[in-house]
Structure formats: C-alpha cells, structure tokens
C-alpha cells in the first residue's frame, strides 16, 4: 500500500515541477487537472475511516470540479484572452525549477516535526509534498505575469491544502468539505470573468502593467 502512496506522491511532486518549468498555458491547465485526479486517488487510498459513501461522493465531486469544470472554465478564458504562453515571467523557468528544489528542501525540513503524527500506512513524504505543493502555488502566483497562470497558482495552492488534510487523515465534516469546494469553484469562476474583462478592457492580461493605472 505504501508503494502506491509513494508513487502517487512522486506524481504530485513531478506535476509541481512541471508547472514550474512549463511555459505553455494549456499544458499547465492539463497538469493542474491531472493533479486533481492524483489528489482524488490519494484521498481515496488514504481515507482514515474507510470508504464510506460520504467520502467517496465528496472526493468524486472534488475530482469532477477540479479536474473537469475548472480546466474547462480556464480553457474558455484562454480562448477569450487569446494567450498561448507565459512569455517572460518575473523569475525564469530554469531558475523556477531550481527555486522549486530549494522549496522542496525547506518543506522537508519544516515537515519533520509533523511526520510523527501522520498515519503509518501513507507515504512518509506525503506531508512534505503537500507543503511543497502549497509553496509552489504561492510561488507561481507571485512570479507569473499572466493573470491566468496566477489563477492556476491559486488552484495548486488549494490542492496542497487538500492533500495536507488527507495526509494527516483529518476527517473534515461533510459541509465544510463542500463549502471549500464551492469557494474554490466560485473563486476560479470569478477569476475567469475578471480575466476576460481585463482582456476586453486592455487587450492583454499582463497584471504587472495594471499597477500604473490611474483614474
């Protein structure tokens, strides 16, 4: 069982690194969708109270929203805004990958005291990887110019929080779980609309150019 969990965690790690290295936005969206599927499988395999109907249905709903609906929304926003790649991020792609390695080391060190409280049958790297996912999401939000990539960074951040919960086997109440899902959905929905509006108003979605706006 631990091997399955290990390989899922490796997949999650690799998807984070790919997000740091990739410039094509469609590829990034696909990776985030893949990440959502991996998250769902992690949550199903490490469910503490066994596979009850509630757990399965919440996980499937999360997978459907994050893996299908949100990527569809973002792809629609891309078509509207007509951007294909992140051209010049504030931090270059090679540097991003190296910073990612640094973030991974930091999260391994930080997660050390937490690991003793983790359940025995999940991978020992699950908690560090969840922290790494959160940090990767933050890093993407901070360093990318395009508003779409920033929305993706927010999604990655949320994925990290989700996997952190399932790695500590925290059984969140059904309503809280659904509430978080609704929050994420609404947030990305609003972001999609805002991206579309920014684009219609200014003909681009480079957020750094918006800081000089005056009325």
């Amino acid at each position, binding site marked *: 069982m*631990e091997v399955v969990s290990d*390989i899922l*965690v*490796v997949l999650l*790690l690799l998807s984070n*690194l790919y997000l740091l290295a990739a410039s094509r936005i469609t590829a990034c969206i696909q990776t985030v969708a893949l990440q959502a599927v991996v998250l769902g499988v992690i949550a199903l395999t490490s469910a503490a109270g066994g596979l009850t109907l509630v757990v399965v249905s919440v996980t499937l709903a999360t997978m459907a929203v994050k893996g299908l609906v949100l990527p569809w929304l973002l792809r629609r926003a891309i078509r509207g805004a007509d951007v294909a790649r992140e051209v010049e991020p504030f931090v270059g792609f*090679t540097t991003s990958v190296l910073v*990612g390695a640094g973030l*991974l080391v930091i999260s391994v060190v930080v997660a050390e005291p937490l690991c003793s409280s983790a359940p025995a049958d999940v991978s020992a790297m699950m908690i560090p990887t969840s922290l790494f996912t959160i940090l990767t999401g933050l890093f993407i939000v901070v360093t990318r110019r395009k508003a779409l990539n920033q929305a993706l960074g927010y999604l990655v951040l949320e994925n990290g929080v989700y996997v952190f919960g399932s790695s500590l086997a925290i059984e969140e109440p059904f309503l809280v779980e659904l509430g978080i899902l609704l929050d994420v959905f609404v947030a990305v929905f609003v972001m999609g609309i805002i991206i579309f509006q920014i684009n219609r108003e200014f003909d681009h979605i480079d957020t750094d150019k918006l800081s000089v706006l005056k009325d």
Partner: protein
Amino acid sequence: MTALASILHVVLAITLSPLLLGVINRTKAKFAGRTGQPLLQAYYDLGKLLQKGAVYSSTATWVFRAGPVVGLAATLIALAFLPLSGAPGLGAFPGDLILLVYALGLLRFMTVLAALDTGSAFEGMGASREVQFSMLAEPVLLLSLAALAICTGKAGLSDIFASLPTLDSLQWVPTALLASVALFVVLLSENARIPVDDPNTHLELTMIHEVMVLDHGGVDFGLIQYGAALKLWIFSALFVGAAMPWRIGQPVMDLLVGVGGVFLSAVFVGVVESVMARLRLIRVPQMLASAAVLALIAVIWAVR
C-alpha cells in the same frame, strides 16, 4: 561464477558496443519508414578507419595525438568498474563510483584539450559547449548514483546494484525510478543524442561533440568512434542497473538479461530520437537542471 560473469561482461561490452549504434539507427529508420543502414555499419566504419593513416596538422602538438588514445584508455578503465545486473565490475571496490565518473571526466578533458590544441576557433566553440553541458550533467550523474548509494547503504557501484533488489522495504522503488529517469537524461546528454545534440548533423551551428573531433582522421577518429560506443554502453548499463533491478539468481543468466536491457535502452534512445526534435541550445541547461532536481528528489527520498 560471478568472476566468469564479470569477464564475460567486459568481453561482451568490448565486442558488442558498436552494435548499439546500429540498433539506434535501425530503430530510427523503422520510425521513418526506411530500411536503414546495416546493423553492423559501425563495425564497417571502424574497420575502414583503422586501415587508414592519420594526417596531423603542423601546428598541433603531442596533446592532439594523445587525446584519442588517453580517451579510449579512460573509457576502458571506467568499463572495468562497471557492473551489469548480476555481473559485478572486474575491479570493484567501495567508492569506485567516483572513479568511474572521473574516468569519464578524463575522457572528456582529453577530447577538449585535443580540440583546443588544433587552434581552430570553431573547435574551441564546440569544446566550450561540451564543457558547459557536461558541467551540468556531471552533478546529475553523481547525485543519482549518490541517491542509490544512500538507499542501499553501500559505497561501491557493484554492491549498490547488487543489493538494490534485496532490500526489504519497497522504499527504494521511487528512488530507483527517479534516479533512472535522471540517468537516462544524462545518457542522452553525454552521448550527444538528440534532445541535446544531433549525431548525424554536420551543421556547424548545432554541433557539440562532432565539432571537437573534426580534425581527427584515420586511426585516431576510429578510436574516438569506438570510445563513444563504449561510453554509450557504460551509461546504458548504469541506466539498466537502476531501471531493471531484477535478478534470476544465476550470474551468467542475469548478465544476459542485463545485456538485453542495454539493447532495449538503445531502442528506447532510438524512439526518443524519432519522436523529439533537438532542443534549442539555451533550452538544454533547463532540461539538465530539471534532471538535477529529479536526482535531488531521489536523494531526499533515500535519506528519509
């Protein structure tokens, strides 16, 4: 029995390594729908080159003549410490992985020196590229071998690959997977295969390895080509050691499985070359940096 397997491995590597190039070319030809050159083409080329004489420029010194010979000798030394599933290296001792990496480093150093010795600006450019990329590839190689060493708790290359499948907990599976991917990237980069360098092109702008050996001819060039084939064998064997750590238990049978794995990795290289375009030069460091991060993750995994 294991000693017999070790000797057999060295003999097989020395005789069969040019065949790897034939297998790669055949795979690429199959993908392109061509018949392709004969499988033994590399042997014919070597035979032709060894019958020729060599021409030396009057400005070149002994360094230029020593380059191919010392390079081939360094490759043979590296081969003597190389294990292939079931067969430990001939001269295996704890810590030999550093020696293997630096024997390959000596090969590169001599090739670069010989290229610089010709005084051609063009070859200097190739040497600079070669050094730049190998500077990035060498840490990846060392890190991924270090990950396997930490995982098994052994310091010798042969011990590492021998004890990998005998470990109890399956913790080594992700480490071996990540390390084998990193080793494969190093294989592609160090052997001038496609995402980094195109071995068939003679277009000046894209060449890395080819450009350094432009002034060598005849026997010298034959030695360089043969050394390159052996180097491909060495990296394939390292990749197979991490990617296929299964044993039957009988050293000679294991060795034959390992040789099959080496040829399988040659087919794999051919597939990669067929489905990928060469990366732009400025993208190559990014690929190697990603491989370095993979190797680093493998190390972190092994430490835990």
